[in-house]
């Protein structure tokens, strides 16, 4: 595991931390976009090692967390239909819909399967010609190419009993929504390395320019994160706002052309509702007209009433960076991973789950 251990080297970590402490003169608020980055920061104890002047705000980059209740209700409705197999990434199963979660309908007898790849779902559809196989296609630009590919494969091999329930969201529109929010406190972004591996960096230049905000494409290991933070701080301290790339071992400016073309073949950009944030224009993907037969919403004529979000869950404020998980009155008391009020407490990338599992600040009152 050499490619990982290098980025977890305690000596390098110390060097970056020293530089960060040395360079920081003013209070700055940095948002890491991706939930994977949040977890790495908390799990490795990095938050406590940064200067007091630096505040890390945990961004909305957790696909499970931003999937609205209504779409989970759609998935649950589909799972309850006869002769349907619904397939999902594991994380989605515990997230509560307006009444129950997929894990609960599975226990009641629905055929819900955890898969690691949508291509497995196409295989499952081939093996079960008498069933309708639906893949719950959740995710950012990272999972969209494989989901698009599954439709292309199904189409090429004449598999007609396969469809997807798309809940794809896009990062740049969310960044713009956050920056234009009147309560915005973000001084700089650590952009999500995986998303940029697919999409490249082009979309970020106009954002950095328009909002005069530095954006550093950053990886997920401790050394990546600290280097990304240092690069952002250097810009802030010098009054600059550029797009920079820390994650050069994977991210190229133009992204992965093949992956982008695959997505463009199958998806069109659409407005999308984000849990806790609301509808952001042009911030999601929907299956396009050409492949409409693979759109579960059309195939099953879905018309699920829009359910209200749980009012006790402050996930919107958490994902906008306005509040920390432990500032929620329900954190660790009424809201725990075993009975969550919202998705950030159960998703493996959710900020609340990160604080609950790893942080030394386990409940609002308690500090170790």
């Amino acid at each position, binding site marked *: 595991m050499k490619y990982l251990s290098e980025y977890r080297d305690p000596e390098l970590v110390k060097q970056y931390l020293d530089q960060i402490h040395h360079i920081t003169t003013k209070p700055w608020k940095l948002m890491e976009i991706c939930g994977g980055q949040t977890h790495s920061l908390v799990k490795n*104890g*990095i938050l406590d090692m940064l200067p007091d002047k630096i505040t890390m705000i945990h961004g909305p980059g957790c696909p499970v967390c931003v999937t609205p209740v209504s779409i989970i209700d759609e998935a649950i409705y589909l799972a309850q239909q006869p002769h349907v197999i619904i397939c999902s990434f594991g994380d*989605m199963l515990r997230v509560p819909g307006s009444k129950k979660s997929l894990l609960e309908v599975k226990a009641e007898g629905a055929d819900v399967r955890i898969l690691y790849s949508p291509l497995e779902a196409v295989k499952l559809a081939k093996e079960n010609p008498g069933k309708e196989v639906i893949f719950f296609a*959740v995710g950012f630009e990272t999972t969209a190419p494989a989901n698009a590919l599954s439709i292309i494969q199904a189409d090429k091999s004449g598999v007609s009993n396969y469809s997807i329930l798309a809940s794809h969201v896009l990062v740049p529109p969310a960044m713009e929504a956050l920056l234009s929010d009147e309560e915005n406190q973000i001084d700089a972004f650590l952009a999500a390395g995986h998303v940029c591996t697919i999409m490249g960096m082009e979309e970020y230049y106009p954002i950095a320019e328009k909002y005069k905000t530095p954006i550093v494409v950053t990886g997920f290991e401790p050394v990546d994160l600290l280097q990304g933070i240092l690069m952002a701080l250097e810009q802030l301290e010098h009054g600059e706002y550029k797009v920079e790339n820390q994650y050069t071992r994977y991210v190229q400016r133009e992204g992965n052309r093949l992956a982008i073309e695959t997505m463009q073949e199958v998806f069109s950009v659409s407005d999308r509702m984000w849990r806790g944030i609301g509808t952001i224009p042009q911030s999601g993907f929907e299956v396009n007209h050409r492949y409409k037969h693979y759109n579960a919403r059309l195939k099953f004529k879905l018309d699920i009433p829009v359910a209200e979000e749980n009012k006790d869950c402050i996930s919107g404020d958490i994902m906008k960076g306005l509040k920390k998980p432990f500032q929620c009155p329900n954190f660790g008391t009424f809201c725990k*991973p075993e009975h969550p009020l919202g998705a950030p407490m159960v998703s493996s990338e959710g900020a609340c789950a990160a604080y609950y599992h*790893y942080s030394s600040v386990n409940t609002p009152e308690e500090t170790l």
Partner: protein
Amino acid sequence: MELQCPMPKFDFDVITLGHGSGGLLTHKLLQSGVFDIFKNELLNQQHDGASFSLNGRVAFSTDSYVITPAFFPGGNIGELAINGTVNDLAMCGAIPQYLSLSFIIEEGLTMKEFWEILVHIKEATQKAKIKIVTGDTKVVEKGKGDKIFINTSGVGLIHPKANIHHNNIRPGDKIIISGNIATHGIAIMSVRKGLEFETTIESDTTNLNHTIEKLLDRFGNDIKFLRDPTRGGVASVLNEIAELTSLGFELDQKSIPVDEQVEGACEMLGLDPLYVANEGLFVAVVAKEIADELLSLLRYDENGATAAIIGEVNTEHPGKVLMKSRIGGRRVVNYLTGEQLPRIC
């Protein structure tokens, strides 16, 4: 795996409901299969139960095995069912003696598969030096089970020098792990339907009773506590003890042994090795004076080549498990909630 015992001739290729009826088919299955392969003086009585004498304090344990898939890299449900109960007894400080063995079989299990499971059970009993003295076989309709479920219960004599109890744990005691963590869980995950990935990782399921007996012979009650961190992994076991003792448990991440391939698979699937299930592995809390000596002895044992001291007990954070990360940060290690599910991206 090649079958080591020749399979006897059965009338059927698959297990049918009739094999659990208690009638002729059950009789034939037991006579030509089970009784013959496990024969010993107690089982040979073929009575409703086994009768025997035991002198001294006794440990008694039971466990059910429902693993899916039943056949996995490095073993099958049969040896798991023996090793699991043998190890539970060993963790009580006992020397396992006799086991019961009960099958709940879903109709349609092939005789070949059943035989393979029996052969693995036999090998595991021989290796652990225990006897199967009573048992049961039931067959359920197709769809009412998952190939085969096994229950084993066992008794063992408490080692004369053993005094395993969480109340004996004191601040300053050292936490020892007998080998690489998370191997079994990842081996199973690699063959789960829908999650398959190519790997050479094999389950490390094995019996630990001889290793434990040797350690108890030498260190007696300086071994305060033993536990095999199966479901829920190392993190869950340590949380349980921290809560029971109201003492703090502090781990050092860089000293926790994990196989490189297993660590890579955990990264890929988004799992934390501390929460992944183990077999053939134990956690010991021991007096600090003997920790180094015990570790050197354990490292020469077939089940302890990569054993390590992974932390110690303190009074700083009662009831909590904390870990110093590889890079020097500190974090809480909490209980596992529900099942660890693979992540999304």
